[in-house]
């Protein structure tokens, strides 16, 4: 099928980009930047074509490629897209050119290596979203660490080494336990059904006793929860964000954090449905703690990057809440919220990067009245802030609203069955919206209003490149806020499938 080839082209285009960069003569940084932007833009255009061709009415995978890879182990090279991954692939491809363009002026050292690493992480992220074989998924999942490690460690701020090693060791710890769980899971499947396979579809059929499911869910969940990150496994995130160069923060917030929630959605919950259903209240509780705790921490930060970093923890808590609600609306809301957070957080980090390039400080107290100093900047900043808070007509509203709606519907049902905790948790989650408005508006107020002050004046307002980047993001934010039915329709079948998988009992016959 032609579209399957197109998906392969999209996936491998970043590697072609690296090959092109290697061929560029040393020192010709301008050419490196142009090639990178061209390749990323091409990738986005091709992904948009894929998105247009994706048929939301069809359940299951589309654009599949499947060939044996390691025959002895039953490992297949199997890639394809379902309704959730198409949106995340689109988000990744959308942010690619913006990341590249955003780093034009910020990265002046080892430019070639930098763009090569951006391509490499792009490749690994896309690979993680399209992989349909657990072995392949794990390969891509781990490969992501290497370029991110270098991006933070080479081009980061003062404490970059500490931050990047913390990032690597945190995530690698989760991965090691996940690896043990992967091997155990595949081995159990082999024992019970005689099939040696890493294919998601086969693993979804594995029947495991509840106790095993809980242990394996904990191992997978630890890895995913570190990536999300969920409180209390979040402490690497503020360090990584603060020390990372803007491009690194954008990739982290924009896509990398979604790996965790995507992992829960694609693997963690559907693989171990009985354990998941049993633990729904606990997962909801952790999500709500993430929402509130993240928001509270964001409220007291003075470093502008940290505010957005903690707000990410809070926003991804909503995603987890939506996924744990097991309500169709909540699940779809979670997917929309993932994309929405990808857009707004990426936009805000880019804006922080822009002001940092001008003023060289991230201290909130050093700023004030930017609305007067940088009027264009302030308009974009306000729009993205409001989108992040969840103002209706922006993408943030769609996501949060659907998640909360789903969570209430699900917890009301549970309440009728006698469990009140979920209802309490859902109500508390609403508090997160209020806190969100509070910390973002505190940020915006201190930043843009009041007496005009900023280091390194006079400041130059946004140039053409910066305006173009932000205009594109803002357009996407409104598109998702005003016309959510398009993406919702594409995700519907996948959300149904996820729900069905998690709702089906899969304990081995008779055993407990």
């Amino acid at each position, binding site marked *: 099928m032609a579209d399957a080839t197109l998906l392969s082209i999209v996936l491998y285009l970043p590697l072609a980009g690296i090959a092109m960069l290697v061929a560029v003569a040393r020192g010709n940084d301008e050419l490196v930047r142009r090639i990178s932007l061209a390749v990323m833009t091409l990738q986005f255009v091709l992904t948009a074509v894929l998105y247009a061709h994706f048929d939301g009415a069809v359940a299951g995978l589309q654009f599949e490629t499947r060939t*044996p*890879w*390691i*025959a*002895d*182990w039953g*490992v297949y090279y199997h890639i394809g897209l379902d309704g959730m991954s198409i949106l995340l692939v689109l988000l990744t491809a959308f942010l690619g050119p913006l990341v590249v363009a955003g780093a034009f002026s910020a990265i002046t050292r*080892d430019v070639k*290596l930098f763009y090569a690493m951006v391509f490499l992480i792009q490749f690994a992220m896309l690979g993680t979203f399209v992989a349909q074989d657990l072995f392949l998924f*794990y*390969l891509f*999942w*781990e*490969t992501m*660490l*290497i370029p991110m*490690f*270098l991006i933070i*460690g*080479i081009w980061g701020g003062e404490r*970059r*080494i500490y931050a*990047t*090693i913390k990032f*690597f*060791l945190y995530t*690698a*710890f989760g991965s*090691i*336990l996940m*690896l*043990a769980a992967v*091997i*155990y899971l*595949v*081995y159990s499947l*082999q024992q019970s059904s005689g099939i040696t396979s890493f294919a998601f579809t086969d693993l979804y059929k594995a029947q495991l006793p509840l106790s095993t499911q809980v242990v394996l869910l904990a191992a997978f969940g630890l890895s995913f929860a570190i990536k999300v990150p969920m409180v209390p496994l979040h402490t690497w995130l503020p360090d990584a964000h603060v020390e990372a160069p803007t491009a690194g923060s954008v990739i982290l917030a924009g896509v990398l954090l979604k790996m965790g929630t995507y992992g829960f959605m694609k693997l963690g919950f559907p693989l171990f449905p009985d354990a998941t259903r049993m633990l729904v209240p606990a997962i909801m509780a952790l999500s709500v703690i993430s929402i509130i705790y993240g928001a509270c921490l964001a409220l007291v930060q003075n470093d502008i990057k940290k505010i957005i970093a903690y707000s990410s923890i809070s926003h991804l808590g909503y995603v987890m809440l939506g996924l744990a609600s097991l309500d169709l609306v909540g699940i779809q809301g979670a997917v929309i919220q993932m994309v929405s957070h990808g857009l707004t957080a990426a936009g805000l980090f880019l804006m922080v990067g822009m002001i940092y390039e001008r003023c060289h400080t991230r201290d909130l107290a050093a700023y004030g009245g930017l609305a007067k100093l940088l009027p264009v900047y302030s308009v974009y900043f306000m729009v993205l802030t409001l989108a992040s808070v969840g103002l209706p007509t922006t993408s943030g509203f769609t996501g949060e609203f659907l998640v909360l709606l789903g969570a209430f519907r699900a917890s009301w049902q549970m309440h009728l069955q006698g469990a009140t905790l979920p209802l309490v948790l859902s109500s508390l989650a609403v508090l997160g919206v209020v806190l969100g408005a509070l910390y973002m508006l505190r940020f915006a107020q201190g930043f843009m209003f009041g007496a005009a002050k900023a280091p390194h004046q006079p400041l130059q307002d946004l140039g053409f490149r910066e305006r173009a980047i932000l205009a594109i993001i803002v357009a996407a934010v409104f598109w998702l806020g005003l016309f959510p039915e398009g993406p919702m329709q594409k995700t519907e079948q996948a959300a149904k499938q996820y729900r069905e998988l998690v709702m089906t009992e899969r304990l081995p016959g008779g055993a407990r």
Partner: protein
Amino acid sequence: MSWQAIFAAMLPEHILLAGLVGLIVLEIVADHPRGSLGVSIVTVCLAAVAALALNLGGVHADPFPGQYSVLPGMSLAKALVLAFALPVLLFAREERTNLRFYPLLLSSLYGFCLIVSAESFLTLFLGLELMSLPVYVLVLLGIRRPDSAEAALKYLVLGGTATALFLMGVALLYGGAASLSIAAFATALHSPDVMARAAVVLIVTAFFIKAAIVPFHAWAPDAYEGASIPVTAFMATIIKAGVLLAVVRLVGTEPLARPMIDLLAILPLVSIVWGNLAAMRQTSFRRMIAYSSIAHAGYLFYAFLGDGATRFQGVVFYLVAYGLANLLAFAALPRGGEDIAADRLDNFKGLFRRRPYAALMIGIAMLSLAGIPPFPGFIAKFLIFRNVMAAGYTTYAVLGLVGSYLGIYFYLRVIQFMFMSADEPEKAPGTVRIALAASVLCLVGIAIFALLPGFVLARL
């Protein structure tokens, strides 16, 4: 068997022997034998090709019944490990090594081939000694280093101890089974007899010493640091391969039960943990690699926890993946001057700015050793831990994996030094060269093992 068949079955050994004799003659007749490197390279290539041909031809042969046998799988292992000697020889060129290096290397390889084909304890012993003795001398050849003599002596004494333990074990086995066939070892693994058990413990301990398993590892860091780069690389890859393949010969596909499993698992697990922890504190690259090889010896012994049929595959795949990464690191290592200071990790600071390709290659090697996907080191670890878990030893598998997590940090630290430090070293090593041909060779091997592991596994 016809004499032609006997000759053909031992072709790799004959080629090595011919090369060895050729080298000695060359040294006698020529004043400045320049051809030693060429002769060695040709010999090693031909021997590896001959072994590969035996594998592809599916040759099963018993040239000396009960002493020496040729099996297709073992021939492939010979071919792969002999191929490792090629990059080692290529570094030797960069090092302007003492000419004694070449004949010693070939005779050690000859010993390696004997081990892999051994059917009796006599052949095995001959092989082990023939492989190890030249290496004691090779360590000493790094004479420009002050520590070489001490390192060589430590290695010799511990190697001698291992030999003694091995012989005592064999004697006990012979006392029980009245046979020198290595099959006696497999039988002894199940025997409730105290003498047989003692024999097993003695022999396993001997191999633990040779493979540098904690607590018998103390010789390794000194020997690795004291020797010259090609010798260190040779010890880390080919000698380790010889020792592990000897264990494969002994344990074979014999099913193992509890006390033996623990014997084969506990110390290797300690090695994984201790090797990785101790590597974190090292300031010398080669000492770090030595501790890393102590940890890797642990993973390699883990392969024996797997079911019988999987052991050989696990050990060979792991050896090759590990060997390629080590050789790549040594190939790309900037060298110049023989002093140990050139080997300090501090000298890696800012290497990427000075030598981007060397830094990238060392980086790849470190990530592969750390077992980070998509490099072959990951696939090899996956293979081993998968086999351990499939055999039902989940606890050992999880503990081993957690132990391997401890190893990530010090590999990352090398990458951190190379890419993230702007500091130039205080004294940059004089002329900086890397063994380019050798590194390209290793990179190709790594690419094959990373992209087509299925192809390789199907042939093991």
